């Protein structure tokens, strides 16, 4: 049933997935009475390697303590591990300074953090009724709703770039969308629903021309490609740990130092202060200013281990692996009758998440029948409902790959879709 098609030739640039998969215990899962798990839901969350789990375990078993405030051994160890994770993440994204890396609970908090900073900022950053906010129609809800809230609460106007029929940003009206009134442009680097990789440079250039800040949602980029915040040219970059072989409960916001100095805090509490009296308080310098309360200590340390794991394999190699696999998957999916790709149809400027519809079989049904064969995909609007509205579809089925995904899993998907068609045919 899942025999590889006879014509399959070796793909160039693949990683040694046999070795890699040994690091990921969950990939050995067997589901539905003996079916081997084919995990193609990596855009939702990734599996975790033993190396990350061991790091968590040994933190809790040996060095668990609250950070920053203690003089005892465990507190010193925990602090060194936590701050060491910040160093690792800073290096991973080529941040000019470790103090530019803020730990949050997820990418959504990172994005909300920027929206709130700007809402409470003084000039020249302040977003208010005379200003404009720019996003795009392919954003994840986590990069839409914070801006809708900010616009409702400040009176600022929310604008956005539309999409072309082939799943790319329509930048033809960039001069009208990003104007002198624009305070912030926030957009996704790699779309979680379409797979599109967006053209950063054109947007950053225009934003800089009008003096707007730029926030990049790199949630689907950080796991899959080398990320260099300096090369991107943005002011803020947000991403999330659980999609990049790290634990849940940890996200990152990178921000330019002088902005982090100037912008006001968001959450108030322990750790983020310099000195507190009942009458007033002053705040610690960044990044601590933006990390109120006991941080996700173990999770940050786990993310540090994740970043080590990915770096040891090499982000460029991971990108090449996924590119080859995506090309192969697009090719094979084209063989499936009545399958329509939602998003770019070639692997050019494209990530490893592939959304599609299958005739008029509802994605829920596609996903369920695939699941019965052990194949885990995601169905629905993928927290990007405006994209579904744009393309006039209720939802999509999405298969998404990662460094441990294999051509055989692509084949299993294609065979599985055949079964779906038979079932609902």
């Amino acid at each position, binding site marked *: 049933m899942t025999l590889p098609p006879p014509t399959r030739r070796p793909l160039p640039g693949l990683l040694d997935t046999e070795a890699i998969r040994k690091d990921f215990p969950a990939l050995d899962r067997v589901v539905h009475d003996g079916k081997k798990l084919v995990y193609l839901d990596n855009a939702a969350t990734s599996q975790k390697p033993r190396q990350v789990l061991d790091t968590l375990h040994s933190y809790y078993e040996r060095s668990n303590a609250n950070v920053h405030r203690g003089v005892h051994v465990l507190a010193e160890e925990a602090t060194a591990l936590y701050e060491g994770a910040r160093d690792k993440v800073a290096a991973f994204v080529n941040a000019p300074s470790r103090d530019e890396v803020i730990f949050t609970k997820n990418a959504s908090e990172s994005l909300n953090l920027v929206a709130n900073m700007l809402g409470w900022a003084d000039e020249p950053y302040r977003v208010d009724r005379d200003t404009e906010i720019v996003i795009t129609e392919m954003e994840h809800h986590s990069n839409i709703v914070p801006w809708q809230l900010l616009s409702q609460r400040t009176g600022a106007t929310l604008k956005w770039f539309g999409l072309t029929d082939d799943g790319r940003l329509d930048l033809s009206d960039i001069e009208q969308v990003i104007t002198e009134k624009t305070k912030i442009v926030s957009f996704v680097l790699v779309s979680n629903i379409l797979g599109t990789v967006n053209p950063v440079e054109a947007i950053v250039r225009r934003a800089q021309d009008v003096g707007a800040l730029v926030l990049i949602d790199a949630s689907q980029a950080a796991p899959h490609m080398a990320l260099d915040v300096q090369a991107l040219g943005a002011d803020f970059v947000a991403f999330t740990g659980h999609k990049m072989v790290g634990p849940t409960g940890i996200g990152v916001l990178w921000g330019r130092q002088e902005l982090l100095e100037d912008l006001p805090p968001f959450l108030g509490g322990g750790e983020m202060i310099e000195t507190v009296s009942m009458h007033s308080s002053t705040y610690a310098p960044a990044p601590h200013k933006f990390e109120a309360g006991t941080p996700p200590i173990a999770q940050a340390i786990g993310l540090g281990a994740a970043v080590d794991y990915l770096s040891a394999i090499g982000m460029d190699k991971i990108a090449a692996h996924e590119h080859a696999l995506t090309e192969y998957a697009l090719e094979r999916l084209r063989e499936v009758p009545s399958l329509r790709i939602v998003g770019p149809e070639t692997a050019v400027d494209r990530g490893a998440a592939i959304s599609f519809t299958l005739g008029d079989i*509802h*994605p*829920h*049904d596609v996903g*369920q*029948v695939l699941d019965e064969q052990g194949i885990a995909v995601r*169905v*629905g*609007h993928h927290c990007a*409902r405006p994209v*579904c509205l744009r393309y006039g579809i*209720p*939802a999509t089925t999405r298969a998404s790959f990662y460094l441990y995904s294999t051509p055989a899993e692509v084949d299993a998907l294609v065979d599985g879709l055949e079964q779906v068609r038979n*079932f*609902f045919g």
Partner: protein
Amino acid sequence: MYQDVILDHYKHPHGRGLRDGQAEVHHVNPTCGDEITLRVRMDGDVVGDISYEGQGCSISQASASVLNELLVGKDVADAQKIQETFLELMQSRGRIEPDEAMEEVLEDAVAFAGVSKYPARVKCALLSWMAWKDATAKALSTAPDPSGTTPEETA
């Protein structure tokens, strides 16, 4: 979970389309974007018609079809009891094995027992039933207005 009865109703839905009624509601399932617009017409105490339109998976489509087949023509009190029984079955997480008594009440709807093991799909099965409950409450409490605005209107 895909019993033949379910697939049958999915492929040949009963009572689909919007017709006259005294109340209309629009419900959505936020996890998957499924939507239903549903109208009820009450003929006195009797469920005169349940008409609907929407998009959704086989489970939600079939369930709306079963709803129509099962409730139209029933006394509203009986219909509400059927709805409650269906709700109970769907929320049982696969722990209720429908017995004869239940089968008598739910007829084709017992085919959904298997769906209750899949929490993500329970909402699909319940979408039209919750919409009917809501619409009926409106129809019973307000003056007839088949095109009235609804509490959960999408933007």
